């Protein structure tokens, strides 16, 4: 339903109502300013009761514990192979040189020398920096979690494709799951599984499965009818049709799903250590706790390198088309790389046996760049301390405190009316209802004030991120090489563990909202920059040429052709920016906030499932509402542009 003049009329009416409620606040009864007590529903108690029932009366606990035992057995095997935990099969640890060779060969086989250097180099870096054991602890969980997520995602994706009813049920669940903050997942996992590597693996699986389901479904739906016909004509059964025809045809979507799973797994490395996942994340938190920034940065670099390596490897695998070697070729010729790999590995094992350094680099022998990093950090802080002191004063006194007070001052009815007005203007009655229901539920949960503080921090962060991110994106999009460089920086900033950002911002701004906003802005800016670049670079060149031919200056082309054309893509960036900010604001509770995140942290430490989920849903609803509005707007823009 496109907004008609009638629609905008109602939107204006709702806006007037919102303004009336806000400015007439002194006339309003208490119950219209904040939800009255009788309206606040005990959602948390209901959820807790449901969980208690599942856990004790329904015996779900035995089921989850049985599942986690399987996961634990697998974890023990990988833990033995990778870092020598004393478990079956008791043959590990594999020397680091062998794993580095394997990574190198995998890179070469998939894409050639450059990927080989990246993959091999990553593992050499890990070994030489003395982080081998931690990195292997992390990887031992990831190599178990990834196949589980992939199989689970594939299975659910196929089910959803087979049964439209299942898809209808699954879709909203996936939407919520992808906008729930990480901590909200963890509390039920602690209740059902306990703590330790298996809990870390399971929370990672849960977190990384949704994109796999979506990509599988997308891929299966895109399989052309002709291919299926061909399969049927060849006389395949239904199972053969699925396993031999449909899934191979949907290969590239499914492999992109695998890639997403790997990235999500790495994103959980640090957070999952809150419930006992060992390895890099756990070490990182310990080091930050002792204020060792240089060493933490080293670990951050390792996580980024691992992410980039696994991302490139899995993408190369996804893009590589299946090769069909000539059947007549000799075995040795066809499996040349396999043979070289086996030979090198054997050499590696032998070498490592005689040179312990190639087997394991001890912490004492490790290289470190922590000293220079700490010194540089120290210099930077001394240098810009006067500027940040002023900035802190300015932002707190003139921007943040007034804004926060304003958000908290607004009656909740005025906020709901305002959202209804925005919703109506974007998408008519349905959107207005969506907005009111989402925020209405937050009001009913009794966390209104804290939710408003979260909204305030997210909105100011996204605005600041846009102020910096948009010009940066426009500037970068002018030259392709520059765009590639900036995109690389975006990738790095995004995969770098968010916890490391928290310490420098506290050192610069102190424990207050400025530090929180500064940390969130980094994450909020990344998607804005990325999608601005992508949007501008993908404007059809004919359009730009046409504009230039009709004598438009560069400024005019930018403002009247390129930006309007890029807007739908840029809106996707804005959408992601809000999502990332919501997640980061929750994590910024570790700086010190008074919002939903702080309560979430408390719920985690007291393993209060109900409270954690209610808070998680509140955050998810904010994300889903923004998503709905921006998608609506973006569709309108696309329709207007005729693309």
């Amino acid at each position: 339903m496109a907004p008609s003049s009638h629609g905008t009329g109602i939107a204006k009416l709702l806006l007037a109502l919102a303004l009336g409620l806000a400015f007439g606040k002194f006339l309003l009864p208490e119950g219209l300013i904040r939800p009255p007590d009788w309206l606040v529903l005990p959602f948390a108690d209901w959820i807790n009761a449901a969980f208690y029932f599942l856990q004790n009366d329904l015996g779900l606990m035995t089921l989850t514990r049985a599942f986690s035992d399987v996961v634990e057995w697998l974890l023990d095997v990988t833990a033995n192979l990778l870092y020598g935990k004393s478990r079956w099969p008791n043959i590990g640890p594999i020397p680091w040189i062998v794993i580095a060779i394997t990574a190198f060969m995998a890179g070469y086989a998939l894409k050639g020398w450059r990927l080989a250097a990246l993959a091999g180099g990553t593992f050499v870096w890990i070994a030489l920096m003395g982080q081998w054991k931690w990195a292997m602890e992390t990887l031992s969980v990831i190599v178990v979690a990834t196949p589980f997520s992939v199989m689970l995602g594939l299975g659910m994706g196929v089910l959803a494709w087979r049964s439209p009813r299942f898809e209808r049920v699954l879709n909203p669940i996936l939407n919520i799951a992808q906008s729930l903050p990480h901590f909200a997942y963890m509390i039920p996992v602690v209740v059902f599984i306990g703590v330790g590597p298996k809990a870390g693996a399971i929370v990672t699986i849960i977190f990384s499965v949704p994109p796999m389901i979506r990509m599988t479904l997308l891929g299966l739906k895109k399989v052309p009818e002709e291919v299926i016909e061909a399969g049927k004509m060849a006389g395949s059964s239904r199972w053969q049709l699925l396993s031999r025809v449909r899934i191979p045809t949907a290969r590239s979507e499914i492999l992109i799903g695998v890639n997403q799973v790997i990235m999500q797994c790495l994103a959980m490395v640090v957070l999952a250590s809150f419930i006992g996942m060992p390895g890099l994340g756990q070490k990182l938190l310990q080091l930050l706790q002792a204020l060792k920034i240089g060493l933490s940065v080293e670990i951050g670099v390792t996580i980024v390198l691992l992410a980039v390596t696994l991302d490139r490897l899995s993408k190369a695998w996804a893009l590589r088309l299946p090769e069909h070697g000539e059947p007549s070729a000799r075995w040795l010729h066809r499996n040349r790389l396999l043979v070289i790999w086996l030979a090198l590995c054997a050499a590696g094992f032998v070498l490592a046996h005689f040179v312990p350094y190639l087997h394991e680099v001890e912490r004492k022998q490790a290289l470190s760049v922590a000293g220079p990093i700490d010194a540089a950090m120290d210099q930077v802080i001394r240098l810009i301390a006067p500027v940040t002191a002023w900035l802190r004063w300015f932002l707190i006194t003139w921007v943040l405190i007034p804004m926060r007070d304003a958000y908290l001052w607004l009656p909740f009815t005025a906020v709901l009316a305002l959202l209804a007005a925005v919703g109506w203007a974007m998408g008519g009655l349905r959107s207005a209802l969506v907005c009111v229901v989402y925020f209405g539920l937050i009001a009913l949960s009794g966390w209104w004030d804290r939710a408003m503080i979260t909204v305030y921090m997210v909105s100011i962060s996204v605005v600041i991120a846009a102020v910096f991110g948009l010009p940066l994106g426009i500037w970068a999009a002018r030259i392709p090489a520059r765009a590639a460089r900036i995109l690389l920086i975006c990738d790095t900033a995004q995969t770098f563990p968010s916890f490391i950002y928290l310490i420098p911002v506290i050192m610069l701004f102190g424990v207050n909202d400025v530090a929180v906003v500064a940390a969130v802005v980094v994450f909020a800016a990344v998607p804005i920059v990325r999608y601005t670049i992508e949007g501008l670079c993908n404007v059809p060149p004919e359009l730009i040429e046409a504009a230039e031919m009709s004598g438009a200056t560069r400024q005019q082309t930018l403002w009247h052709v390129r930006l309007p054309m890029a807007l739908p893509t840029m809106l996707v960036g804005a959408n992601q920016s809000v999502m990332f900010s919501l997640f980061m604001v929750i994590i910024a509770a570790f700086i010190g906030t008074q919002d939903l995140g702080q309560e979430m942290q408390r719920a985690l430490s007291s393993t209060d499932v109900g409270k954690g989920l209610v808070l998680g849903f509140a955050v998810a609803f904010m994300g889903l509402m923004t998503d709905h509005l921006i998608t609506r707007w973006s569709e309108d823009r696309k329709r207007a542009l005729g693309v």
Partner: protein
Amino acid sequence: MKSARTMLASAAALALFAPVAWAEDSSDPIIIPLHNWSSQIVMSHVVGDVLASMGNSVEYVTTDSQAVYESVRLGDVSLELEVWEGAFGASFDAAVAKGGIHAAGAHTAVTREDWWYPMWTKEACPGLPDWKALNDCAALFKTPETGDKGRFLGGPVDWLKHDAEKVDALGMNFVVVNAGSAAAIWAELGAAEKTKTPIVVFNWTPNFAEAVWPGEFVEFPKWEAGCNTDPAVGLHADKIYDCGNPATGYLKIAAWDGMKDKWPAAYATLSKVSLTNAQIAEMAKLVDIDGMEPEDAAKAWMDANPDVWKAWLG
């Protein structure tokens, strides 16, 4: 490294020849929880190494320091070596009330948690450590967000420290700002050190921070039992929390109720474990100042203090 290993071997031999007065320990691993501060990690490794030297299999798992009591109660982890009265007393007591966990012993060390300042603060406010002097210097600690009042950086809200009540009860010219994590407090201290800005924060002992930033606790009116519940107790007759925190809190060792039967020998050793403030501070120093890995620090500490841990075996 090598000497530690021979010592462990001899300890194992000792344990083998010791009169077998108890049933044999289970071969299942004893799970020891690790948290995110160094003294606890090193101490856990020391005790873990001692238990391993007795022939037990030992494993470590990282957990949240509040949630761990629930895990001990359920037997998911077997013990907890640092139960701080101030920080974890409430969680521990709650778990004890539910059943499944008990105090297996206590350290000689005492714990203290209260308002604290690094030495450069004292130069700016010479009357310290008296709390009235601190209050007179409140203007030194003011920030944009606290207006005219001084800023006290407290620990996370879920540590339940009642600092705001204390400020109110003692009529202090301060505002309590809660950090979200201990790391946030250290980051602020580290930044304040570079510019020698006066700062007063929540801190505790034994703690690595004492070695990095020398400092002192603020002396509030002395803690008396009931000061937190009975208005009559303390400085003012009509206020609660009108006193400092206890200066000598306990540091207990908790164990899963099932541990006694499953690993009787290990349990007997655990109940003898006891460390002093100086020994705990030494463990933290090996990691936080000397930059050792916790596992290596545990070995180094055992090499340097054989009498201490051997006494637990007997």
